[in-house]
């Protein structure tokens, strides 16, 4: 019956423990939320990355963009071969301006550059270009 002697303290203590438990619950929820936000952020970033990677490297318009590389210079300067999403091109006697335009366009087309060879021949440039997508 000793507990009866401290009945009042016991009432306060039980309420205090209840409050501590509630505080623990709140703290757990706060950290769970932080974890959940971090996990969600990570997932969102991951999905966004997948989406953007797919958008760049699996673009269905890439073929059309690559075809434009053929028309950049006069036909006489280009040898063009396009098979199964693989292009082998050979440019001859390009002026500096043509070379600049071509290289800039090549860099902006989302293809895997297998070979890009630029050779200065006298005052003009020869370019060999191989790519796939």
């Amino acid at each position, binding site marked *: 019956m000793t507990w009866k002697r401290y009945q009042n303290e016991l009432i306060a203590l039980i309420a205090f423990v209840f*409050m501590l438990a509630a*505080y623990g619950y709140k703290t757990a929820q706060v950290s769970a939320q932080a974890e959940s936000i971090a996990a*969600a952020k990570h997932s*969102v970033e991951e999905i966004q990355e997948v989406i953007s990677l797919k958008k760049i490297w699996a673009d269905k318009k890439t073929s059309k963009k690559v075809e434009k590389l053929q028309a950049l210079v006069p036909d006489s300067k280009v040898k063009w071969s396009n098979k199964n999403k693989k292009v082998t091109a050979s440019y001859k006697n390009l002026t500096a301006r043509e070379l600049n335009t071509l290289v800039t366009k090549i*860099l902006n087309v989302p293809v895997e550059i297998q070979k*890009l060879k630029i050779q200065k021949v006298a005052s003009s440039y020869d370019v060999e270009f191989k790519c796939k997508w």
Partner: protein
Amino acid sequence: MNFMGNNKDLLLVYPSMKPVSLTEAVNVMLPPQFYTLKKEALPLRYAYQAKKIAPSLFDGLLEAGSHYEYMVWKEDEAWVFLAYDIEKITAFLESKGFALEHVSKLFFAQQSVDLFDKPLLLGEDEALVSLDRMVVVVPRGAITEENGPSLVFNNSFTPKKGIVLSGAYGSVLSLKQASMLAAIFILFALMFFVEGSRYSDDSEAGETKIQEMLSAYPALQSKYTRDSIVAKYKAIDTAERKKREIVKMVSGMIFKGVTLSSLEVDDKSYKVHFTCKDAQVAKRLNLLATKNKLKTSAISGSHDLKIEGTL
């Protein structure tokens, strides 16, 4: 189950009683020696109002220096005011062998005045009788045979309302203080629970955003698919960005006096050949290459520079 504690034995205590030895909790009834009583017909409606004015009613009647507490209740049209000194009562009980933790509730004889229709003997010399609806102690000699045999004191004398002694001794906190503290703690606990549940709701918001994105791109529902897409394109992306970066760097290194003689980029490496007009231009180009973290090598017999590296 009796929550009122009235299932315990009721003991009537009095100054001349013999010491007791208790093993179980009991209720205790106190005779008039342990309290001061006053009856007043006052126009009061509630007991708390009566309790408020109780100390002023006993002005001059109580021993100075003692700490009195009050009990009030209504009897017919009058209010009954009862003052008692809990310290005096507990001291008496302890002197008679009562372990205070065995005393469940304290009652006063006046509370059961209706049952005192006959005298109740208190030891050898005294008796409790009801006079004008007040329980008083009288010498045993004052009782005549006309009064009949003594009352039998038993649990039926237990009134409804008693004093919980456990809250009045030993404790650092009074029942009122404990209740107040408990209320504050519970209030905080409820606030924490509400706040916690809000956080739990908020954490579901991120999940909703993911679901929205996935419903816009159903093909990416599976983590396996996403991982394989990332594995496939990430490597391509990294390598291709590097190739383009090299070509851009090289084009940025062409200035007056520098000519690009050749450039070759494939899947694994790159080679660049610059022709420089003079040594000063070559030096400037070398500095630019170092700034771009490119490894240069001079070509003997000329001012030309070669840059090579792996991707």
